[in-house]
Structure formats: C-alpha cells, structure tokens
C-alpha cells in the first residue's frame, strides 16, 4: 500500500491490489490456464496489463463509475481481466452463470441495466442476441472466442475481444494515466460487483457488494487468517472451477488471489476437475458438498472394483481412517498420539495414494461451504488426512459469517463466528443474524426486499435457523422457509435427512416432503452413473434413467439406504415411503438453480402426483 | 546346347520346388492375411520325417511320405491354433515376426534331430537319362510332375469344391464370408494344413534333388520367398510365375556364371533369386501379379 497512486486514493480496491503486486513483483505467477495440455503461466505484470487495457477500453466506450457490465463466461483468465478492468474504472461487474438460459440472461441484463456484455463464445453470444431487442441498455457485446462468430455474424453490436483490447491500447496511448486517475477517485461505497442470488424461491435478486464489503471480507477472512490458517500466501495454489459469478469462488479466485498472491489455476471445466485437481494438487481447496460427495462416491466405487489385494488393503486402512476420523471428531481436529501413529502407518499404505488420486495431497486447508454437508463425509476426509473445515457465509454478507478453525472443529456445526464480527441467534425465530462491514448494501433496485433483509440496526437476516452448540459453535438447522412442520406439529429439518441420504453413492438427489402432513416421505433421484454401473455388475439390463428406477433391484437398493438413514434419526423423522424422480433434475427445466440447488417449490409442484401417491 | 538344356531342366525342377512352397504361402496369406515365415520350418519337418521313416526306419517310401505329410499338416494346424489364432486382428507385421519366432524354434528342434549328416529320403527315383550330354535325373522329372499334379489339384479344389469356394470367399472379404455362415476357423485350419502338406512334399523333393536332407534344406526353402514376392504375395498364378522366373534365373546363373563372371563370387546363384526380387520390386512395388493396395486415410 505504498505506491503513489494508492496513497492518493485513500481507499484500497482490488484494482490497486493488482496494480501494487504488478509493480512490486511483475514476474510473479498470478494465474495459470491449461492451454493445449500445458499449464501456462500468467504473471501479475501481464494480469495488470490486461486489466488496465480493459479499463482503458471501457473508458473509451464512455463507461462511467457506477455503470454495470455483465460477464457471461466459464472461469478463465479473461473473466478476471474483465472484472478487474471494470472495477478499475469504478464500474460494477455482474456475472452470469454459463448455464443460464436465454430467458434468464434477458432478466439479469435487464434488471441490472448492463451497458456492455462480455461473452465467452458463440453459445453465450447467441443467448444474448436472441433477446437483445428487449434490452435497450445493452450497447455492446464483446466476445472472447471468435470461433463461429467472426466472418459469420455482422451485427454491429458485436466486437471481438482482440478489437476491444486494441481499442483499450489506443486509448492508453492517448491517455496513459486515465485508468489510474479514475482508480484514485474510488470510494468505499462504490459498487464493486453485483452478485445475483440463485433464487430458489422467487426471481434472482442482485446483491450489491461495495468496495467496503470486499475489503471487509479480505480483512476478516483473509488477512486475519479467518478462513485459512496460517494465512494464505504466494506459495499457495488454488484451483478455480466453481462459477466465478458466485461470491464464494470470486472471493477465492479474485479477492484472496490479489490480497494474498495465491496462484489461481483455472480448471479446464467442471467435468475435468478430477484430472485438474490431480495435476495442480492445490494447497487450499474451496468446494461445495456436492463435489465432496462425488469424490467420496468415486472412492467407494473404485475401491469396490479394485483387485483383491487392493480391496483388502483399502478395507483395512479405511477402517483405521474411520477410527482416526472419530478421534479427530472428538478432539476437534487434534491428533492424539495413537491416532497420529495409526495415521502414519495408513499414510504409507493408503492415505498418501488416496490423497494423490483425489488431488488433495498438498492440501493444507479444504473448505466446504455454500450448502450443508453430511458429517460422514467430513469424517471420511479428516480420517484420510485432508484437513477439512465447514464454513458458513452467503453472498449477502460477502461470504463472511462463521468457520470451523484448526483444532476446534465440531462436526455438524459451521463453526464459530469470525473474530470482530457480530453474530447472534434471534431468540424467537431462531434466525441467525450477522452484522459487520461485509454486510451488503442491499438488493439492486429492490428496496422492499432489502428492508426485509437488513433491519434498522444493520443486522443481516440470513434466513437460516441456527442454534448454539456449547455456546461457541453455530449449528444450522435449515433454511427458515424449508423447515417442515408436520401435521403433528413437530419441527423437522429436511436438509439433515437429505444429506444423510446423499452420503450413499447411489443417491444423487433427495427432497424430503412432509410439511403439514402426517409423516415424512422423500423423492429420491439416483446417481445414474453409479447405479448404472452397479446394475451392470449385477447383470440388470436397463436403458434409460427412468427404466433403471423402475427395476425392483434398484428399489431394494435404495430401500436399504433409506432404512440406514432412518436408523440415525428419531422416530418422527423417519421416512415412511419414497418415490423416484421420473427424470434427472435439470436446470433448464427449472428444477435446479444454476448452483445446482433444488428449487423445492417447483419440484413439489411438478411432482405433485408422485407426492400425493405417497399419502 | 546340352548345357542350356541341362540348365533349363535344373531350373524347372527348382522352380517346381519353389512353386509348392509358394502356393502354400499364398494360400495362407490370402485366406488368413498372415505372412508366414514359418514355411521353411514346415519344409524341413516334412523332409526330416520322410527321411526318418523311409531311410532310418527303412519303411516303404510312399508310406513314409504319407506319414510325413500328415505330421507336417499336424504341425501346421498346431501352429495356427496355438500361436496364430490369438493374433487375429493384430498388425500384419507382428504376426509375420511371430512366424519367424516359430520358424526358429521348430527348425532348431528338427535340425537337432537331423544332426550333422545328410539323410537320404529313400526315394525310388534314382536313375537318370542322358539326353545328348544333358543328364536328366528321374528325380527332377518326378519333381516337375508331382508339382504339376499337386498344383492342378489345389487349383481344382479352389475352383470346384464347396470348401474351396468358401476359402475364396473368405479371402475376398472375411467379414462378409463370416456373415454368410462360413466358418473362418475351418478356413484357417485348411489353409495351414494345406500349406503344411505341400511344404512336406517340397521338403521331400528337396531331399531327393539335393542329395539328402540336412540343416541346409531350410535355406532352399527360404529362396521360395523371393519367388512369392516376384509374383506378388496375394496371387496364386503369380506364385507360379514367380517360382518359374526365380528358379530359371538361379539355374542359368549357376550354369553360366562360373567361368564368365567369377568376380561375383562362388555360389552367386544362391543370391540370384533375391536380386531378381529387387529388380522386380523396384519396377513393380507389388510384384508382377500382386494387388495394388488402395489406402484410405
């Protein structure tokens, strides 16, 4: 924070963080992207140069502070170049999920009033072009990949990334310090980014995160070792693969990447994440329960189909890992002498190789967030030596609320509030309330919704029901609106049951039903790949997903899973019946959000016949 | 003139021996797509057992020949079943090398049985005719006659018998033949059996023509390879023409080189078949009658 420009500014921004790093260590590796089979380096010098060029290009187009610019792309360096360029000229970025369909694109662009849209390729460009008539504010679409667009589309609204940068360089020639000058005028209440909530209930709402919010998140979670301890630095590697338009990934790939100098490696795609992980072996791994569940299921399946000796080896040492996991659960994550010795032995035979295969061998801190995770999964990873911590946060509080800390882990809780923030649980409703500088400025042009979320005293109403555990740790019961009140008047958290169901590799999706009903039931979606494999090994022929769910053997298989789940819960929480989804849930059909969360209301409506059939 | 006549007859009988081996080779190649370098092994196997039964044990020559042919067929079938069946679908060259491996292994065993001496085969064709200075041995005539008879028999088999038709179909397109209900296993077995039988007869003829069976018998058999290549490895008529060309060239070279072209070295005629092959291949890369391969990328 010693450069001339930042002293003038007085307000630290991400653009300055990048600028400072580029000036101090221009050759330090900032990003890595897999290109033609090689992880090619991008240094902070190149990073800043690209971001500044984007800034100039935006200035050349007449972008003013406060304007919104949309980015519709998979994670890739250009995403960050664009975002940093946007922030440098005090505009706000708005990210769209690559999976967003055209209608959603229209809503988000219209709602945010974006002037410029940066798209990744022809696919995303087409989505915007289809609805551009309804978007009077949209002035330009900048496409990154020219394939399929160049020489084929002649819409004047289109501009290639190369031309866009060329315009920026031209502007820089003419006004070399223009971007730096705008940066220096930055204010704390500048809108840094607009993050749209995925909207499990109504239409998505744009959460406004300001420069102050971002700085608070960096200070609380990053610099003060809130998230990762010891705190992240230049020797750390992370892998960027969750959608960058989500605050969770943005905090890691951009905010912490700039504040701590962590090397950000872009995964090729979410499908190749396993391979990318093995190659990168990140030291910090931010992920969501779904990924951990998949990893866990993958291990179980591959272990089951290993050769005899390997199977035996696995069985022996995974048993030990289970014991180690239980010990760690008891001690809060601190090894006892006995567990350490057991781990050392198991490391030689299994854990080392297993970690290597999962890509978590160099991982010093794995985080699970964004959704509740089953304690069984956490215990599994802790047992095989991956330091795993469940954390809690949301877009509206710049993902800063609580986290489990090294040596003080309590499974089943989301940990303790970060030092220096206010967190309480409402005595009446049980809702978790948070107050700190990271709490967002409100929903974009939705004052009513904002007023419902932030009260006069500045408390953020999270919408999650929580309870204290041992007075220090917070346990999330469920989303307030998801809590099931049975006909008998009993309050039940469906997500806990659902997550326990999902610890079975065969279960991909589970929705517990029972609000105002006599007993609980569940809609279950099988994991098609896993169950299909299992069926093949049992010689059960099948064709489609639906055909597979209709097999008596599959039903028996899932019945066993349900019985095992029931055994872990009290009698009123037992599932009496279950049905299979007749199809795989899909975002395009409005059943899942872009973050793959189930839209309960939509599902209860669509599958109402199935549900009624169980009562 | 008598020298020329002598050389011609020598060449014809040599060509006849090559032809027998070459026909077996082409039959295997056409019906199984295997380039068999194991033919010399089958030749010495046949030759040795004729010698063993007919000479060492002193049995009737025809009985000995019959038994030897059966043994060679047996060896051919075993080789096909044990070593080549698992290689179906592997690259042609791998299979060819594999047959070299088989050849080395089998030949070593037979050579050990033969020992260092020449073994007679006990054939009934011992005399010779004197045609004005040219000595035509009965064995040579027998060689030519037997070859002609066998080649006609093989041709007739392919032309008129049901199995022969099936084999031609399999050679034309294996998959379609399979779809038509032709047992490829039978086709393979017949091809190898036939090649084994022909090789055994050829071995016996080499033994009669060259004063006995020895480890060197295999080298005579090796010279059938250029004959096949000259004709084109997938053509039966080609094999016959190739044998004729190579056999005659070798015989004339043997007759006329000594005294005229001594600088070419003693026993130059032994490498003449290879030289003929070089020349032909340089002019026609697929031999005289070979099918030009059409490649698709």
């Amino acid at each position, binding site marked *: 924070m010693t450069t001339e420009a930042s002293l003038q500014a007085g307000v630290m921004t991400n653009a300055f963080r990048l600028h400072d790093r580029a000036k101090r260590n221009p050759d330090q590796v900032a990003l890595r992207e897999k290109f033609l089979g090689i*992880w*090619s380096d991008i240094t902070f010098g190149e990073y800043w140069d690209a971001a500044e060029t984007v800034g100039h290009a935006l200035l050349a187009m007449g972008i003013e502070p406060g304007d919104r610019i949309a980015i519709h792309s998979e994670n890739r360096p250009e995403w960050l170049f664009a975002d940093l360029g946007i922030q440098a000229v005090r505009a706000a970025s708005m990210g769209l999920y690559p999976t967003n369909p055209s209608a959603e694109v229209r809503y988000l662009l219209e709602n945010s009033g974006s002037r410029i849209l940066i798209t990744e390729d022809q696919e995303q460009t087409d989505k915007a072009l289809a609805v551009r008539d309804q978007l009077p504010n949209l002035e330009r679409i900048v496409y990154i990949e020219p394939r399929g667009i160049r020489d084929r589309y002649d819409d004047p609204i289109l501009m290639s990334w190369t031309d866009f940068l060329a315009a920026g360089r031209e502007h820089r020639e003419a006004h070399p310090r223009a971007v730096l000058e705008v940066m220096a005028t930055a204010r704390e209440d500048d809108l840094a980014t607009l993050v749209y909530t995925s909207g499990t209930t109504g239409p998505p709402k744009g959460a406004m995160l300001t420069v102050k919010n971002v700085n608070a998140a960096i200070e609380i979670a990053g610099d003060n070792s809130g998230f990762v301890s010891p705190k992240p630095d230049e020797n750390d590697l992370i892998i960027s693969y969750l959608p960058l338009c989500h605050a969770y990934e943005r905090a890691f790939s951009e905010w912490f990447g700039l504040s701590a100098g962590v090397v950000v490696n872009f995964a090729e795609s979410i499908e190749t994440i396993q391979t990318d992980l093995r190659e*990168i072996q990140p030291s910090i791994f931010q992920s969501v329960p779904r990924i951990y569940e998949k990893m866990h299921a993958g291990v179980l399946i591959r272990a089951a189909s290993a*050769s005899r000796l390997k199977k035996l080896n696995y069985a022996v040492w995974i048993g030990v890992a289970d014991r180690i996991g239980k010990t760690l659960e008891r001690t809060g994550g601190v090894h006892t002498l006995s567990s350490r010795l057991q781990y050392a032995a198991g490391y030689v035979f299994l854990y080392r190789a297993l970690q290597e295969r999962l890509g978590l061998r160099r991982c010093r801190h794995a985080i699970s967030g964004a959704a509740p995770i089953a304690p069984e999964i956490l215990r599994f990873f802790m047992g095989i030596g991956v330091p795993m911590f469940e954390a809690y946060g949301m877009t509206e509080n710049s993902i800063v609320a609580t986290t489990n800390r090294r040596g003080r882990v309590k499974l089943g809780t989301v940990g303790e509030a970060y030092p220096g923030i206010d967190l309480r649980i409402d005595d009446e409703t049980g809702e978790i309330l948070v107050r700190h500088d990271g709490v967002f400025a409100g929903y974009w042009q939705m004052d009513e919704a904002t007023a419902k979320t932030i009260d006069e005293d500045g408390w953020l109403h999270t919408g999650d029901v929580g309870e204290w555990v041992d007075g220090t740790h917070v346990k999330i019961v469920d989303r307030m609106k998801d809590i099931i009140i049975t006909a008998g008047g009993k309050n039940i958290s469906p997500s806990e049951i659902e997550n326990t169901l999902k610890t079975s590799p065969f279960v991909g999706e589970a929705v517990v039903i029972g609000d105002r009903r006599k007993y609980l039931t569940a809609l279950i979606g099988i994991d098609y790949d896993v169950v299909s494999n299992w069926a093949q090994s049992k010689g059960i022929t099948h064709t489609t997903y639906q055909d597979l769910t209709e097999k008596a053997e599959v039903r028996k298989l899932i019945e066993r899973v349900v019985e095992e789940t029931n055994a872990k819960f009290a009698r009123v929480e037992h599932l009496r019946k279950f049905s299979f989804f007749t199809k795989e849930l899909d975002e395009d059909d409005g059943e899942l959000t872009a973050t793959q969360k189930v839209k309960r209301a939509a599902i209860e409506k669509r599958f109402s016949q199935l549900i009624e059939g169980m009562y | 003139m008598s020298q020329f006549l002598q050389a011609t007859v020598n060449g014809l009988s040599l060509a006849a021996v090559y032809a027998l081996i070459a026909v077996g080779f082409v039959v295997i190649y056409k019906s199984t797509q295997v380039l068999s370098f194991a033919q010399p092994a089958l030749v010495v196997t046949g030759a040795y057992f004729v010698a063993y039964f007919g000479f060492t044990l002193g049995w009737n020559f025809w009985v000995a020949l019959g038994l030897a042919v059966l043994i060679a067929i047996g060896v051919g079938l075993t080789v096909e079943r044990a070593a080549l069946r698992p290689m179906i679908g592997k690259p042609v060259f791998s299979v060819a090398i594999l047959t070299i*491996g088989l050849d*080395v292994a089998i030949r070593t065993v037979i050579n050990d049985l033969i020992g260092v001496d020449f073994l007679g085969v006990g054939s009934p064709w011992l005399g010779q005719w004197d045609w004005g200075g040219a000595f035509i041995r009965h064995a040579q005539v027998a060689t030519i006659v037997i070859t002609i008879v066998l080649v006609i028999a093989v041709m007739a088999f392919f032309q008129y018998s049901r199995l022969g038709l099936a084999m031609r179909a399999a050679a034309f397109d294996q998959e379609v033949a399979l779809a038509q209900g032709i047992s490829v296993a039978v086709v393979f077995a017949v091809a190898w059996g036939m090649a084994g039988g022909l090789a055994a007869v050829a071995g016996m003829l080499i033994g009669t023509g060259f004063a006995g069976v020895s480890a060197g018998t295999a080298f005579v058999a090796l010279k059938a390879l250029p004959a096949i290549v000259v004709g084109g490895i997938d053509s039966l008529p080609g094999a016959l023409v190739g044998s004729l060309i190579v056999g005659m060239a070798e015989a004339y070279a043997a007759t006329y080189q000594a005294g005229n072209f001594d600088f070419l070295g003693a026993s*130059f005629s032994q490498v003449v078949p290879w030289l003929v092959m070089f020349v032909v291949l340089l002019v026609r890369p697929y031999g005289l009658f070979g099918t030009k391969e059409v490649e698709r990328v």
Partner: protein
Amino acid sequence: MRGRPGLITSYRRDIALFRTGTQRFWMVVLLVVAAWLPLWMPNDWLVPAAISLFAAIGAIGLNLVTGYAGQVSLGHAFFLGVGAYVAAALSTETGPGTRGLLAFGFDMIIWLPLAGLIAALLGVIVAPVALRLKGLYLAFVTLGLVFLGTHLFQSWKELTGGAGVGRRAAELNLLGYRLDKDGEVFGLFLTDTQKIYFLGFVLLIVMALVAKNLARSRIGRAFAAIRDRDIAAEIMGIDLTRYKVIAFGVSSFYAGIAGALLYTVTGFLEPTSFNLTLSVFYVAMVLIGGVATISGSIMGAVFVTMLPRLIDFAAEYLPYDPATGPLNTGQLEAIMFGLLIVFFLIFEPLGLYGLWIRVRNYWKAWPFSY
C-alpha cells in the same frame, strides 16, 4: 513445481527426460550399479555383459527405424556387418596376422565414426527403396539385403578372410591407448574385458541419450506420424523422403557403431555370422524389450545377449544338463528365442518395457485398479 509432478507449465517439461526427481534418482542408482558390476563380476558373466552393451546400441538403432519410424527392417545384420568390417579393416595394422587382408592401422578416433558413417551411407542408399515399398514388401527387401550381404562378405576375401577363416576384429587403440589390454586406469587395475565394458557403458549412455533426444524432438514426432499413418503424415506436411532417409541413416549408423565394437570382446569375426539369424536376434531384442522405447531396447538387448549365460546358469540348478542332453545350450537358446518372440507378441506386445509399465501402473493406480 516441486511435489506436483502433474503440474506441467511448459512443453520442455512435458517432454523432459526425467519428469520427477524420483525418476532421476533411480536412474542414478541404476547407472551406479551398472558401473559397479564389472568390478566384481566373474569373466564368464562379464563377457556377455560387455557384448550386451554394444548389442544395446544396435538394438536402439533398429528400434529407431522399426519401432519409432515403423519401417520394418530385417536387414540389420547387414549394417552390423558393414560396421564390423569397416572397423576391422581400418584398425588392424598390416602384419603377419593380416596377410592378404585389407588393413590400414588407423586410430579408433577415426575408424569408429567411419564405421558408423559408412554403414549410415549404405542405409541412406537403401532408404529410397523404403519410399517405394511398404510394410511387408519392405521387409522382404531388407531380408534380401541380408542374403546379398552374406554373399558379399563371403566372397570379398580381402576384407573378411572368407567363410570359415575370418579375421581379427577391430583393435581398440584410442589415441595410442590400448583398451583391449589389461592395465591401470586412474590407479585402478582393469582387465581388458572390464575396460571394454566401460567403453560400452559410456558409449551406450551417450548413444542412448542422443537417440532419446532424437525421439522426443521434431524428428521423433515425424517418425511416429509416419509409423502411424504415412499418408496422413504426408498431408500434415511431413517430408516422407527426408524422414525415411534420416530413419535408415541414423539406424544404420547405430548398427555400424555396434557392429564395429561387438566383436572386439571376443576378438574374432566370421563372415557367415551376419545372417538372417542375427537380424532375427535384433528384432527379438526390440520386440522383447519393447517397440518404440529406448530403455526397452536396452533391456531387450541385455536380456537376449545374456540369455545363453542365464540358461547355463539355470541348468546348474535344473535336472536337465545341456552338456549331455539332446539339446545343447545354443539350441535351447534358439528355441527359447523363437518361443519368447511368440510369447511376447501374443501376451505382451509391448515387451519387457510393457511388463515394466504394467507393474508401474499397478502401483500407480494404487489404491484402486484404475
């Protein structure tokens, strides 16, 4: 990136000789063991061991043309012979032992490269034939080459001494220093065989490195493209003539060097030894070792060359004695070659290298099976 073998940040690293420190470590261990072996090995083991080092050079050569570039050659024995005779003729001095033979008495620094170069020249002459012919027909031509070669060697008595007579092999006279006589090296007393072993050891390392570098360079990639589909390679802009000539030239160079030195261990050359069987031995080395691998060529050469000694060794512990039984060592060896070729082609087409890969994959996939 230390501890992250999968994180490859440049193509240079991607094609590096050793991708991890572990690989480098084990290579050093292997080299140290190989350098230490001859110091205590009894002579009856050391002789085939030394021969196997030179054979390995020859096998690498064959693997370059056949394994990497896919140009089937059964004519390797011919190029080995050329190397052997060029070396013998250039090195030996005229004297009572070489009556009537070509002998020039050059130093090794001259005759060794020349042996390789003349063989390479002949290889380059053969290469255009490979342009015209493909696959099996090419195999036949190279086979014919062996027969012509054998005939040539037997007939040219001034060079070879003739069949059954032969001549002395090349003299290892390097800059006036005799490598084929017992003597002290750096204060260490070495026998002639030990010295030759070390010569082969150093030379093999150099030649193997050169070959490996060739294989992972533009040339090696062109070879692979030609092997996999020559028409496709041509369409990609690979000059078939150029690369086939390079393949045959380099391969023959290796054969020439190998041939020049192979017989210095036993000290004697006989023209009939460069026959089809010798070619088949080299093909066997490549196949048993592993097609299109340098380390495989070395493994194959060592295995094939040491096999007779191993059979003798094993015989001491087996009820069967080759000295009195119906099959002697040489015959057993030949039969085993034949059967090994068959065995490897059917069960392990990748050869010894393939076995090694299998074992490695077993541990690589640990704790799973895939």
